């Protein structure tokens, strides 16, 4: 008895010592951001690494922002894992007052968990030096996709991306195909020239799903796609239009349209192959232009068309965003909001196009040459949130019920008919478990 008593005493003593140690060190280390009540500073956690072009553009803006306003910015260049690092601190006091990532990352991490600040006030701020409000320079058709269930915006975009069928305009000038048959003709023409029609990094789960997903959206529209995703009975999948669209993808797979090795390579091997003119087209996000830049054949001219509508379906263009969010528990959200407005000034935001080679949300900033085609589609056609916003609204369904089967379809492991019946069955299962 005395023995365990002594043991217990030793343990509690050690625990005491440990907590004292922890407490001391806590005092010594610089504590989190926003301790000062004044809004003279804020912390920004970036999705970019310091040497990346976007980081350079934002950094330049931060420097002049501090000079102009006296507000200091503590930047951490976290890279893509930024939301993961931020999450645990969100509930009590966010470790960053300003964060940037994609629509899906910010939507899932901040908005869907109820941790996003209402950015309405930021949209009402004046863009310094322009006499216009933020809401005047960001098209409202974009902002509509960046709102939570109550209609409050959770994100201010500074970079707009989208998917397209990309090609080298120098080598292979291509007109927008009006029908699926037109598209197949294009592919056949490439084949006849001895070039693989399509590149695809099928191991990349995000890219593998493009063909089935975008084709389905072409047939049933973005709303129709959301209905497919959210149908608890699975009955929506019986629509013959669905099978028809998927069968078209199956034919591409079975017809040998994808470049050799598409199924056994590692991303980004195929897109680099494509940039070397060894494949004619690639269905990818617009970032494929920056990602392949250093590997592209000489004189490569990036251009893109959209998949044609199927059976009178939609020809709208999917649009995706990268931009800023502010956590609800941020201590210096106001200062962060000021920076957002400041950054959207034309002269500063321009760098995203001229230096970082991306489309900005502002219509008055020309797109970089490589993305002109896509930018034109954004302006001329109706837009819909990329991937029918499945990732944002039905992320669990997409990754569980849809994505693995879609990948299997383009890998030639699942037929169109099996695809439909499997996704249907998995959807029913999935929604059953979502209490």
């Amino acid at each position, binding site marked *: 008895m005395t*023995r365990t008593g*002594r*043991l217990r*005493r*030793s*343990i509690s*003593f*050690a*625990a005491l*010592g*440990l907590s004292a140690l922890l407490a001391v060190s806590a005092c010594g280390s610089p504590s989190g951001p926003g301790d000062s009540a004044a809004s003279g500073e804020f912390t920004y956690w970036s999705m970019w690494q310091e040497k990346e072009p976007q980081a350079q553009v934002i950094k330049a803006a931060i420097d002049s922002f501090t000079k102009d306003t006296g507000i200091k910015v503590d930047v951490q260049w976290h890279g*893509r894992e930024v*939301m*993961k690092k931020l*999450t*645990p601190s*969100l*509930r009590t006091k966010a470790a960053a007052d300003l964060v940037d990532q994609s629509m*899906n*990352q910010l939507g*899932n*991490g901040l908005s*869907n*968990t109820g*941790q996003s600040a209402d950015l309405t006030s930021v949209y009402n701020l004046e863009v310094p030096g322009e006499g216009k409000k933020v809401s005047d320079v960001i098209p409202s058709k974009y902002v509509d996709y960046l709102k939570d269930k109550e209609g409050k915006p959770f994100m201010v975009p500074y970079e707009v991306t989208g998917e397209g069928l990309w090609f080298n305009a120098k080598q292979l000038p291509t007109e927008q195909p009006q029908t699926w048959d037109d598209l197949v003709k294009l592919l056949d023409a490439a084949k006849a020239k001895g070039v693989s029609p399509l590149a695809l*990094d*099928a*191991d*990349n*789960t*995000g*890219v*593998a799903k493009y063909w089935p997903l975008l084709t389905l959206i072409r047939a049933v529209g973005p709303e129709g796609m959301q209905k497919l995703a959210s149908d608890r009975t699975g009955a929506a999948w019986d629509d013959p239009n669905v099978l028809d669209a998927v069968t078209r993808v199956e034919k591409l797979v079975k017809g040998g349209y994808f470049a*050799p*090795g598409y*199924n*056994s*390579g*590692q*991303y*980004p*091997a195929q897109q680099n*192959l494509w940039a070397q003119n060894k494949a004619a087209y690639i269905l990818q996000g617009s970032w494929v232009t920056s990602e392949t830049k250093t590997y592209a054949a000489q004189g490569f001219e990036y251009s893109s068309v959209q998949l044609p509508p199927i059976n009178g379906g939609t020809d709208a263009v999917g649009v995706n965003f990268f931009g800023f969010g502010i956590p609800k528990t941020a201590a210096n959200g106001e200062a962060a909001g000021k920076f957002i407005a400041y950054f959207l000034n034309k002269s500063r935001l321009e760098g995203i196009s001229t230096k970082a080679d991306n489309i900005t949300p502002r219509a008055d900033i020309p797109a970089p040459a490589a993305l002109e085609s896509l930018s034109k589609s954004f302006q001329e056609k109706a837009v819909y949130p990329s991937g029918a916003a499945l*990732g*944002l609204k039905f*992320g*669990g369904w997409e*990754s*569980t019920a849809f994505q*693995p089967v879609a*990948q*299997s379809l383009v*890998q030639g*492991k699942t037929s169109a008919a099996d695809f439909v019946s499997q996704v249907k069955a*998995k959807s029913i*299962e*999935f929604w*059953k*478990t979502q*209490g």
Partner: protein
Amino acid sequence: MALTLDQRSASRRESRRPAGPRPVRGGQSPLARRQRRIFGPFLAIPLALYLVLFIGPTLYSIYAAFTNWDGINTPTWRGTDNFTALFDDPLFIESFWNTLLILVVVGIGIFVLAFSFMLLLRDMKGKGFVRGVIFLPHIVSPIVLAIFWGFLLRHDGLLNALIVKFGGEPVAWIGPDSAFLMIMIAMVWISTGFYVAILMAGVDRIPGYFYEDASLAGASAWQKLRHITLPLSWDVIGVAAVLWTISSVKVFEFIYAFGASQGQMPPAYEWNAAVFVYGVTFGGATPQYRFGYACASALVMLLLVTGMVALLRRAMRRDAVQF
């Protein structure tokens, strides 16, 4: 009290029996009593650290397994719903099977290889060198090894470059049917050296004269294996089996670095349980933040490991041979 080297080695040589205080009838030996006194102080610090930073969080996660928790807001009680949902989730089922495949198939692969190596190495030239080199993969980050493995096997990779050079057709090493197999082979490659080291550790302790005597008595190699090597290294084999069981379930970095691209999760056919935990929480371009669910899956795996270890210990239990 300073002991001379002589005394030390002498006593080492003599005492071949298992250590630990001798059982003393009734009372306690003075040594046992003294050692009892240091028990508390010696254990206090590690125990406190372990409780606060390891066991505490684990207990919370066990609680969270029965809740709906997004990792941020307060968990809400969900009873056993997470567990029923898990076994309806095709992704979890696939991850679960893959975990078992790594545990059992890779485990067998490693042990067959490590055991054969051990037998071959016992009297082979350059044995120290071999042992040192095959241990190398173990000292390198799994992320680095995954990068190498990808370069080796991808369609335009090292192996296919060689095949094409000699007039062959590129092989689809990491297609949907074979990718997981390749991951398993990599696991064998990475781990064999470590387990050879452990097994050799056991075998090295067997006095050489056992084998000499056996040879004199005309025993075959097989008989030596059967009657000397196996029984005398049985303990070590058991420890190695337990270690593999435990670490196989935790395999994560290699699969993630090998299969994931562009911030996406690896293809579903490459998932194991650890990847699953990541996939339903932080992973992918559209993170799910289903922490309660993830905790439930980890709890299932923890139970699996515990069961397997108990089973292994039971199966491996034999009269330990003292020598």
